[in-house]
């Protein structure tokens, strides 16, 4: 017992407040502080209102996904990816499916790719709604959050129509989708791209030229492109510094190269720029969804998965009546698929940045090794160094604009 306690104090970064004459005091922000929006801790040494130095402690909801994944067949790993960035689970799901499809060299029909694009862009909008809405709340503007939150609810209704779940979606299967989008889903997607622009405009009106908001966020936590690249930042916060790195453009997946959209970039990398970049990305996502809907119209109807019976579960009625389907069903469920020995790195543009899957496969039933390159984890490590010298209130909106999702941070 005593051994473990001494080890803990050895490993934990603790500031001691022994000297009563000392100017500095220690303040714990988190693990369950409302400002952290998730379970992680920051131990700060403060001098009045200013942070002198800080240490981030993470891992409070670590669930050993990489270890669990080594013991599961591919299709059972999708629900694990849901729980990485749970604000935009469909992007994680699709990223994982595409990684496996890359490993197995499966060609995905165009219509399925466009369907995936729609789902991913909806998820991106939902994620940015959370981040920008919460940034408003943290700076003291609550109503904008409520306006856009209603639209996020509508996106979740679309997800519910597509797959039956709302938050941890488990959308799609390896090779395509589990079922076609129904008419209600298409109607709701069309309704969404009509009803969301006025709401987003109203949201922007509340913030973009708002003097209080600008003075609160402009120039706060400004990051240079060199710093951001050295810390391996990616996603909207990297683009806010002026680097136009977007995985959708440089490494197009899911036919993103066919879409006409812009990559918004900022100039100063401060909280205001991050807010603006995320807002602009929502507009671009709406454009992409509109184009994807047009493209789907031109594709043959009713295709929602690739023709790969050895990897895609057959319909249940066929399993009962058809020998071949039964065999495939058995093989897939028992993980008896013939898979190549290879290693593959696949990255998608998650809502927070480059979400990478590094999969090493030895031909067995489960991955030999699976590593998630989680953008929140990589982005967040700069938070403690950049907070030194910052006001506590600035550090809190900085954390809010980094959009750190505890599930993705800890995996």
């Amino acid at each position, binding site marked *: 017992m005593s051994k473990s306690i001494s080890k803990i104090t050895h490993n934990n970064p603790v500031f001691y407040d022994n000297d009563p004459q000392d100017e500095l005091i220690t303040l714990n922000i988190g693990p369950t502080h409302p400002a952290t929006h998730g379970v992680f801790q920051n131990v700060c040494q403060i001098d009045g209102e200013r942070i002198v130095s800080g240490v981030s402690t*993470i891992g409070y909801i670590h669930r050993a996904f990489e*270890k669990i994944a080594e013991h599961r067949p591919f299709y059972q790993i999708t629900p694990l990816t849901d729980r990485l960035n749970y604000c935009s689970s469909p992007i994680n799901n699709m990223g994982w499916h595409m990684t496996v499809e890359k490993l197995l060299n499966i060609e995905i029909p165009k219509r399925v790719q466009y369907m995936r694009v729609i789902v991913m862009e909806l998820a991106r909008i939902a994620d940015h709604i959370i981040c920008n809405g919460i940034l408003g709340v943290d700076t003291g503007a609550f109503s904008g959050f409520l306006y856009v939150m209603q639209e996020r609810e509508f996106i979740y209704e679309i997800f519910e129509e597509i797959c039956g779940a709302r938050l941890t979606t488990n959308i799609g299967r390896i090779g395509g989708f589990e079922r076609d989008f129904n008419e209600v889903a298409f109607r709701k997607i069309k309704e969404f791209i009509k009803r969301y622009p006025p709401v987003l405009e109203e949201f922007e009106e509340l913030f973009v030229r708002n003097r209080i908001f600008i003075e609160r966020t402009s120039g706060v936590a400004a990051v240079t492109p060199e710093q951001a690249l050295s*810390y391996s930042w990616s996603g909207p916060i990297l683009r806010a510094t002026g680097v136009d790195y977007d995985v959708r453009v*440089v490494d197009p997946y899911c036919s993103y190269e066919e879409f006409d959209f812009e990559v918004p970039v900022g100039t100063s990398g401060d909280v205001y720029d991050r807010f603006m970049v995320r807002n602009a990305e929502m507009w671009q996502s709406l454009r992409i969804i509109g184009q994807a809907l047009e493209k789907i119209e031109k594709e043959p109807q009713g295709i929602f998965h690739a023709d790969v019976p050895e990897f895609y579960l057959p319909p249940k009625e066929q399993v009962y009546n058809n020998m071949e389907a039964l065999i495939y069903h058995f093989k897939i469920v028992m993980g008896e698929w013939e898979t190549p020995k*290879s290693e593959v790195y696949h990255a998608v543009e998650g809502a927070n940045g480059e979400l990478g899957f590094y999969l090493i496969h030895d031909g067995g039933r489960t991955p030999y090794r699976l590593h998630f390159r989680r953008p929140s984890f990589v982005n967040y490590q700069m938070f403690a160094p950049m907070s030194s010298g910052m006001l506590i209130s600035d550090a809190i909106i900085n954390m809010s604009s980094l959009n750190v999702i505890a599930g993705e941070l800890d995996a």
Partner: protein
Amino acid sequence: MDKLDNQGIWTYLQEKFGERVGIIGEPHGLLTISTSKDDIIELLSFLKDDEKLQFIYLTDITAVHYPKQQKAFAVVYHVHNLYRNVRLRVKVFLEGETPTTPTATTIWNGANWMERETYDFFGVVFEGHPDLRRILNMDDLDVFPMRKEYPLEDPNRVDKKDFYFGR
């Protein structure tokens, strides 16, 4: 070198490093090279700073455990040339119960937590790392859980053994 393709990168690296880098393959088009822990920092700095290569962005650091090999640990670096969009994978194979390799935090600040995570799960010691502590696991854990010998669940469970399924 106008076009930066895998062949070009490989030839260029061979001119500079010769025998000290080896090629592992190009799985799914991603050039994978290997080197030893004595040369890794020189190689990574060269990849980053060379005018032709410009692999300025560190995407990921992780490790893999191969318990049956003599060199049982592979530390895997993914680097990315953002100017021309080329990715490269570098592997370092390490041996011993406490494998050690020099830290890359001298090249990229972002390597800090990635190496801490690798240490936390595999016990790879990055020499010269400013703050090599556990990051996701609890501090008083005295094993490295991503090593293959560490069981996921109760190893005495018999209902999931392979021989029940004829394997």
